[in-house]
């Protein structure tokens, strides 16, 4: 666009220039060539005016003539005015007239001028700086020349003057400058008012406002002279176009630029910036994500590596512990053994004390090592559980007896209760269960100073069913009256518990599966566990505080082991603890049901008896009832002592014994003599009164008044075997003594065994000796045999034996095999007798030979029992022999045998023999 404008300007300029040249020729033709001149000022002015349209860029033209100094006077006279200087026209024209005009040899006064420039007539052009230069150059070159832009006279606008020289005669194109100067007679000047002209030109073109046009004279490239446009600094972009106005010396340029900066495309800019920002953000996010993923992956790898190392270290640690512990244990046993032997030597008191201390420390060390070994074993996964049948109740009794001493020292009540839904014989690892319970009770005893420790065992489903009932139980109805922590909370977190809650028919569950889920709780009324320590109770070697181990000892490993053991038994362990009230630890274990139901106490001599338990605390009475029921005694609970008399007299049941809790007794000690005397007065069979007492309470001191009515004092904690002994003492039976009422059949069995011929078969001579000793004690005639083979020989009918006790595990021929052979042998002979093949007389007139054979076995597994029966045995007794148990088994066996064979003959003979004290074969 700038180039276009420049070209237009140049074109119009050239047009004007050409016309000026034509005007110059016109003047040379009509002014100088004619004499007199055909042109005067008026003609020139009119002509110039009328042809102004031809020169659109000129604002005016003037013609100056060359006047030599010699011709000046004549010229001035002819024209009628004096030649004036140009630069001083306005200041002091009068003074100048005489000034330096004399020094000049030629003048160029203006004679003709367009009307607009009439004021320049008579001025000497050679006195103007630009004009003079222009004139000199024009006459030398013969071409139009331009001045540098300058302020015009009067109008004070920027302008340039184009000058053409007018020659006297026509000159050749190759004329020298000197010839040209010589030939010059006048000078025609055209005034270009550049500012006005360019304005006019730009007006003709559209969008003038949007463009800023500047025209410069760049003859001197370092000092451009502005010809048009505002003086602006060179900021912004502009376009440069060169202008050629026909004068080779002068260089002109046109600069164009947009007046206003084009409005910024805000939307596009914002959009693109936004996109850019989004892209950057997305990029950043992506980068961050990728680097994060990489970092996490790296971390993960590191963690895995560390984990592997830690695990390896842990395994190594456990193995090391296991090895070291084991290696320490062996020599420690030696040390302990030697200390034990040292104790038996003659020592003075101090020495004995030293040895005792050393031994106690050694034992502490061994038990600690055992614990560590257990932990290590569990951690290295080496601990395996046994699966043997055991009687849980007996195990719990044992545990109780273990803590008897400690509980007594502290005056704590220790009790166990097992729900009757729990089978008598369970299959599992009783050693580990014992360990867990021992640990829990041990802890409880440590932290309990008053109150009780209560161990309860229930079937899981039973607990589920009794959930609602439990809530109603009053909090003070506990074993000793102290409040306890709600034990339900201790198992609330059990997964299993939640899992099985929806089971609609739990009773079905418990009976159908061979697995049995026990829930065992140990409740105490101790100091409890501080809330802040409760979270790390099961962490190994963590104790409530550092002072604990100083006060109470222990390693803090017990609970962690217990937790592991419970886990191994597919159970869970949890606890609830309230500071200053107590803690309850509860765990579950999954055990297998054993099919047999052999409660050793069920068939006791007290079977079928009825006992009245008087205790104002139902929870405690429940425990007593449980133990009585184990002995086969029916228990009736009575809370109020005042009701006892009516119970005893009015009931249809005969009550054989009354068990009174010591606390209840003391509360109303005066009522008892009254009751007893009343009973005596009625001449009734007075039931035995037994007092249940805690080991600490001093019985004699405060109840001496009524003590005479009490048959026996039973010291708690209750255990079946101990209760049995106590009852036996109270009821006046047992240990060979005859029962007063003669109800107990086995007591007459003393006579039954008397002088009986019994064969005992065992390969172990010690066993043999013990067994025979036991049997001899009851008057039996015992014969011994060391092997099954010998026994077969001796039991070949006819023989003298009334019964046979047979060991099962024997070398060469075991008990089963021997029994089988004996039974075959007997069957053979019986058949022969039946068929009269052999005379009965040969067999001592016995029609049917069947010697009762009892197995002697160390393990009471059901399988063994069944095997016994299959082989034709009549029962079994467990080894080693125990007097009472032996009685029981023999009684049962004999009754079974005789009923089983319901052969009148035998039965008759038995009865007869029984009465006469003779043979009962």
């Amino acid at each position, binding site marked *: 666009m700038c180039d276009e404008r420049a070209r237009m300007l140049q074109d119009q300029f050239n047009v004007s220039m050409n016309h000026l040249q034509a005007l110059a020729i016109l003047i040379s033709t009509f002014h100088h060539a004619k004499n007199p001149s055909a042109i005067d000022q008026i003609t020139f002015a009119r002509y110039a005016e009328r042809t102004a349209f031809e020169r659109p860029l000129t604002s005016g033209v003037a013609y100056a003539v060359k006047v030599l100094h010699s011709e000046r006077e004549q010229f001035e006279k002819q024209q009628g005015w004096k030649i004036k200087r140009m630069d001083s026209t306005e200041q002091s024209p009068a003074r100048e007239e005489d000034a330096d005009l004399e020094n000049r040899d030629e003048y160029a006064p203006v004679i003709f001028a367009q009307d607009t420039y009439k004021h320049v007539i008579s001025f000497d052009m050679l006195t103007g700086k630009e004009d003079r230069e222009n004139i000199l150059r024009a006459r030398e070159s013969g071409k139009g020349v331009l001045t540098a832009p300058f302020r015009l006279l009067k109008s004070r606008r920027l302008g340039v003057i184009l000058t053409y020289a007018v020659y006297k005669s026509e000159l050749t194109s190759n004329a020298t400058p000197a010839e040209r100067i010589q030939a010059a007679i006048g000078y025609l000047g055209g005034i270009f008012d550049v500012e006005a002209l360019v304005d006019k030109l730009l007006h003709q073109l559209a969008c003038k406002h949007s463009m800023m046009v500047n025209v410069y004279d760049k003859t001197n490239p370092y000092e451009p002279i502005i010809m048009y446009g505002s003086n602006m600094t060179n900021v912004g972009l502009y376009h440069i176009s060169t202008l050629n106005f026909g004068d080779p010396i002068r260089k002109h340029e046109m600069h164009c630029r947009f007046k206003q900066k084009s409005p910024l495309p805000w939307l596009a800019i914002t959009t693109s910036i936004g996109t850019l920002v989004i892209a950057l953000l997305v990029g950043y996010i992506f980068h961050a994500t990728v680097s994060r993923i990489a970092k996490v992956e790296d971390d993960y790898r590191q963690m895995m590596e560390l984990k592997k190392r830690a695990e390896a270290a842990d395994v190594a640690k456990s193995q090391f512990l296991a090895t070291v512990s084991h290696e320490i244990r062996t020599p420690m046993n030696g040390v302990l053994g030697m200390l*034990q032997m040292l104790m038996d030597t003659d020592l003075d008191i101090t020495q004995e004390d030293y040895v005792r201390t050393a031994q106690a420390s050694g034992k502490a060390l061994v038990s600690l090592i055992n614990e560590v070994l257990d932990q290590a074993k569990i951690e290295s996964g080496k601990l395996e559980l046994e699966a043997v049948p055991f009687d849980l109740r007996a195990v719990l009794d044992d545990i109780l007896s*273990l803590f008897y001493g400690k509980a007594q020292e502290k005056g704590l009540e220790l009790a166990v209760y097992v729900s009757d839904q729990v089978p008598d014989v369970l299959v599992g690892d009783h050693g580990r269960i014992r360990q867990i319970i021992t640990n829990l009770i041990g802890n409880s005893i440590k932290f309990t100073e008053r109150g009780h420790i209560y161990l309860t065992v229930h079937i899981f489903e039973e607990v589920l069913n009794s959930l609602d009932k439990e809530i109603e139980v009053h909090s003070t109805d506990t074993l000793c009256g102290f409040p306890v922590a709600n034990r339900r909370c201790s198992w609330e977190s059990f997964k299993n518990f939640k899992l099985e809650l929806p089971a609609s028919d739990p009773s079905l569950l418990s009976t159908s599966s061979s697995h049995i889920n026990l829930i065992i709780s140990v409740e105490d009324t101790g100091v409890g566990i501080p809330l802040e320590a409760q979270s790390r109770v099961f962490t190994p070697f963590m104790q409530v505080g550092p002072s604990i181990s100083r006060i109470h000892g222990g390693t803090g490993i*017990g609970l962690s082991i217990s937790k592991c053991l419970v886990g191994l038994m597919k159970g869970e362990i949890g606890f609830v603890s309230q500071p200053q009230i107590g803690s309850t630890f509860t765990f579950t274990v999954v055990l297998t049901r054993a099919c047999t139901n052999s409660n050793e106490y069920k068939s006791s001599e007290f079977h079928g008896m009825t006992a009245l338990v008087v205790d104002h605390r139902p929870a405690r009475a429940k425990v007593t009832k449980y133990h009585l029921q184990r002995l086969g005694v029916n228990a009736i609970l009575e809370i109020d002592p005042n009701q006892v008399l009516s119970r005893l007299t009015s009931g249809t049941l005969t009550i054989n014994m009354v068990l009174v809790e010591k606390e209840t007794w003391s509360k109303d000690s005066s009522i008892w003599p009254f009751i007893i005397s009343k009973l005596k007065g009625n001449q009734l069979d007075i039931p035995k009164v037994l007092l249940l007492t805690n080991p600490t309470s001093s019985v004699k001191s405060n109840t001496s008044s009524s003590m005479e009515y009490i048959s026996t004092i039973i010291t708690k904690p209750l255990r079946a075997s101990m209760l049995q002994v106590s009852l036996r003492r109270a009821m006046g039976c047992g240990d060979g003594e005859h029962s007063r009422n003669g109800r107990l059949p086995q007591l007459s069995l003393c006579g039954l065994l008397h002088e009986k011929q019994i064969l005992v078969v065992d390969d172990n001579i010690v066993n043999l000796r*013990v067994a025979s000793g036991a049997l001899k*004690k009851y008057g039996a005639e015992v014969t011994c045999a060391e092997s099954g083979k010998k026994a077969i020989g001796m039991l070949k009918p006819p023989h003298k034996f009334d019964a046979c006790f047979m060991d099962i595990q024997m070398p060469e021929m075991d008990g089963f095999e021997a029994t089988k052979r004996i039974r075959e042998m007997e069957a053979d002979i019986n058949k022969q007798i039946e068929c009269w093949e052999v005379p009965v007389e040969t067999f001592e007139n016995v029609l049917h030979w069947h010697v009762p054979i009892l197995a002697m076995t*160390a393990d009471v597994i059901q399988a063994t029992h069944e095997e016994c029966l299959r082989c034709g045995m009549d029962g079994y007794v467990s080894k*080693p022999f125990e007097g009472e148990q032996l009685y029981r088994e023999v009684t049962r066996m004999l009754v079974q045998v005789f009923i089983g064979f319901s052969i009148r003959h035998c039965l008759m003979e038995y009865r007869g023999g029984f009465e006469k004290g003779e043979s009962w074969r």
Partner: protein
Amino acid sequence: MELGSLQRRYIDFTSALFREGFLDNQYTQLQQLQDESNPEFVLEVVTLFFEDSEKLLNELSRTLDQQVVDFKKVDAHVHQLKGSSASIGAQRVKNVCMAFRNCCEERNQEGCLRWLQQVRQEYFLVKSKLETLFRLEKQILAAGGSVPVLCFLWPTHVETLSV
């Protein structure tokens, strides 16, 4: 020593034996079997046990010393020992025997040898204990007293006793 202190010492000693698990209730059972008609019963049985056990222990060490160990035989012997120790109530010997049998099942000769060592140790321990006991009994009888009969309702289990 006078009779009273002898008897007290006897009671202390016997209770210790029970408390520390050397003996269990089976020994009490044995004592109960002893009466006027059979005054030496316990001594007789225990002596039998000593003879039998020593024989078995020797047998065991011989069997285990062989290049190829007949584990069946070892097991049978240990079973015997277990049976007799159970019969007289030597609880600790019995317990070790049980562990010994487990080891035997694994056919671990080295382990068996270690257990044998253990059994021997326990055996000699209980033997020395019982001999002391009998000596005491004799002294009491010689002093013209009667041997106190103890009934232990609270057998304790040393191996599970938490310290």
